């Protein structure tokens, strides 16, 4: 197995408002490149907090977060923005698409922010949309799509700059079972390609299908850490 791409050491996170109980308490975790890590746990156990720390959306109260050698916890705001732009692709439960941009424009944003030449960016977006089966919706607005389709747009957007690390926070949480199956399949395929994935979910089916390793958080502490071999994706 290759060197860890994510190294989390003794991280605690306390939100000022709920000082009594930390959202994460002395958590240490290493994730190797190519691993697909599923984070399980009850609501409020700190799963999203963990993901936000890895994404550089928030800072730990204590401890260090390194991703591919970068000390994420120590980066300034501008550097964090660049880090997210280059290294991270994120998928959310409620899609977080910009409702007044077309599907294509949503997908193009990361490339545009990174200054990718226009033609190349369009080609990339087109390729991703084709691959995810939503290219015929390229000129539609997210509001007109089904939940599964919207989440696929979000995944396409996350993959736009071909980041080494994909983070997903309950990507099937807001979807009906049919749509959830679509997304499960898509993520499974990405993992099969060898992409590193950190996946927060309640959906044990999703964990079983995609994850090479499963951890569980309870009250901000690691309570379980098992390796498993994901169900092969049916082609």
């Amino acid at each position, binding site marked *: 197995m290759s060197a860890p791409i994510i190294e989390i050491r003794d991280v605690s996170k306390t939100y000022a408002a709920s000082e009594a109980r930390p959202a994460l308490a002395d958590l240490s975790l290493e994730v190797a490149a190519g691993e697909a890590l599923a984070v399980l746990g009850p609501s409020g156990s700190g799963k999203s907090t963990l993901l936000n720390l890895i994404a550089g959306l928030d800072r730990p109260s204590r401890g260090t977060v390194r991703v591919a050698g970068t000390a994420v916890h120590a980066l300034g705001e501008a550097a964090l923005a660049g*880090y997210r732009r280059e290294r991270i692709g994120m998928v959310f439960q409620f899609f*977080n698409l910009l*409702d*007044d941009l077309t599907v294509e424009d949503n997908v193009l944003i990361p490339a545009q922010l990174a200054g990718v030449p226009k033609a190349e960016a369009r080609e990339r977006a087109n390729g991703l949309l084709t691959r995810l089966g939503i290219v015929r919706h390229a000129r539609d607005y997210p509001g007109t799509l089904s939940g599964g389709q919207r989440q696929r747009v979000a995944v396409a957007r996350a993959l736009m700059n071909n980041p080494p690390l994909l983070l997903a926070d309950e990507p099937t949480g807001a979807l009906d079972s049919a749509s959830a199956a679509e997304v499960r399949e898509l993520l499974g395929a990405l993992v099969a390609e060898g992409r590193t994935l950190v996946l927060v979910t309640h959906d044990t089916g999703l964990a079983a299908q995609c994850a090479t390793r499963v951890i569980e958080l309870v009250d901000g502490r690691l309570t379980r850490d098992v390796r498993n071999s994901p169900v092969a994706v049916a082609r």
Partner: protein
Amino acid sequence: MSRKERSGRAGRQSPLGRVVRAGMGRKRVQTLVMALTTMTAVTASVLAGGLLLDSQGPYQRAFTAQHGAHLSADFDGSAVGAEQLAATAHVAGVTGTAGPYPALTLHPRVGAGNRFMPAGDPLDTTTVVGRPIDGPLDDLRVTVGHWLTGPGQIVLPDGDSPLDIGDTMVFPDLPGRPLLRVVGLASSVTGTADGWVAPQEIPALTPPGTVPQQQMLYRFAHAGTRAELETDRAAVSAVLPAQAMVGSASYLDAEQQANRTSGTFVPFLVAFGVLGLCMSLLVIGVVVSGAVTAGRRRIGILKALGFTPAQVVRAYLGQALIPAGTGAAAGVLLGNLLSIPVMGVADKALHSVTLGVPFWLDLVVPLGVLAAVAGAALVPARRAGRLRTVEALAVGRTEQAGRFGRSAHGLASRLPLPRWLTLGLALPLGRPARSATTMAAVVLGTIGVTFGIGLALALNQVQQGLSQEMPGAVQVMPFPAPGSGARPRLVTAADLAATGRALAAQPGTRSWTEISTARTGVAGHAGQTQVIAYSGDSSWAALQLVAGRWFSGPGEAVAPEAFLTAYGLHVGDTVTLTANGRGAPVKLVGEVLSLHNELLTGAGSLTPLALPVVPDATQFAVELRQGTDAAAYSDSVNRVLSRHGLTAMPNTPMISIVVLSMDTLATLLTLMLVTVAGLGVLNTVLLDTRERVHDLGVLKALGLKPRQTVGMVLASVALTGLAAGLVGVPLGILLQRTVLPAMAGAAGTAVPGVDLDVYGPPLLLSLLAGGLVLAALGALAPAVWAARARTATALRTE
């Protein structure tokens, strides 16, 4: 009160009240903006309204307050006795009298040691009345100094007195050369005298062998028109010996004079008042409908919890009216506080009593503004009441943008600009109505600034143009140097000729002209007119031209509007001046800027009239070469001139209190308009970024840097600011070109076009950029807030 009781009380509070309070608490900044905007609107309106009222009838108010007299009549003291005069109180139509007071027509000269005037300089013929400060009529209001307290004192009318407190006037023609010291300045609403002394002073001031005149003051039952006053005057005169009444003055002349000044204030105050009111309504509309839009989700939740539509409407009205009411109260307070210094300046210019803001205005303005707030709030509040719960609660935190916003995004994304910039540019088009309203507020702000600056600059130009009546860097006056101790002597024609030679020979002289005053008749008209005659090269000393050109040879003349109106003349007409039974036709070749009723021409035009030279009424104006010091030049040339009884002195420009107070007001009102416009932008951008906080979070999660976030929000107002400049600046110029001539018209003159042309390219460019700067200033705080907002929080699902 125990904690439990308090919470019990809060618990009993209606759910509606709690929702309003919670809504305000959650939107602290918007609540503050709403209060501040209302406060600014009310402050400006109270101030403008108060000034408008104050300048509308200052004369009438002063007339009432000081028991003004309708008529002041002077009687020949040797023809009528005091009892006869007192009996005129019983003439039909007379409702009040004061007097008789002894009155003298005297020829004073400036006493020694005066601050500004040389000793011995002749003063204008002065009517001095011996009387107490108040009486049944015409109470005198002392404005500076104090009323008479002892012998040898005089009080002069405030406004056009050449002497200051502490200065003296002497009467060299009278036995014992009596001397009076000025102890106070006072205003008489009817303008009854040129000076007031104690009755005991009168004997010493009466020329030997004469009897003082007697002054009577009258009020009549009917005195609204000149005709009525003439009837009243005739009725009084009829009961007395023929020719006993030697002169009279009516309050109508003084009223006309006073309202002329106040009239000039009205046009620009109206302009600012209307601008301020429009703007505050726009801003309030944006604020309230923004609060409803931002609260969509909350409205959904409230309705899901069982609120009725009416309760929702009331909740939103309350959320607008509570801060607006607080702001209105603060605005009334601030407006009244500011009115004290501001109205003080205006009233000084108007020579009227400061009454402050009338009480009814303090009620009407805030109530009117609050009614407007309620009206503006009701429309969106009812929209909130009608909102369907499921819609309001629909997943996806941002409201769907209209087709307009989408095509804007599509268009902007095609621009060859960085993505953060194009996203920002398209942002305002997502809410076209709100952006348009905000733009209108910024347009009004830009109009205000453009107009305010243009007004001040043009007023100063007019002021400078008016000061051309005393042209040149150096003036030569026909009296000895002040404080030199030299006795004034009669200046002769030879002295004047010698002065001309001395000026021509003096190094540093560029041009000079001799300016003398004469009085002539005008063919076809009764009475005399003032003629200003220039000798030598006068072209450099030309007054500003409203039309036509400056005169260039004998037989040509120019005149201001007052003269043209008085004689029914136009540029191009020929008028014949008369004196000594001879006539001199002059052709009017131009109209000049001046508030006086006089004709200006070359001395050659008057030659046919064979007027006697009046050296006393002659002065010289000298233009100096570049780099010549006026004081040094004066000292040098005075070594020659002092032998001839004349004195050169640097020309100091006068500062008009009217222009000064107008400048002060324009500055204040402009600042207020800018504040409201800035607050409007602040609020809109705040609403936009609040609504977009989720989208902004997404963009930041995708790697939008803090500086790009600030840039994006600033870019969202760039178009608004730029458009505001492009629309507001021309409108502001148009307003300046409408209001200034109206002000000048009230003052009795036309304005030369050059005085209105104050907008040079650098100023125009700054004004155009001003809209942009204004918008950027308003947007800066929300932009920084947007960049600082924690991404994780913004993205957190509720």
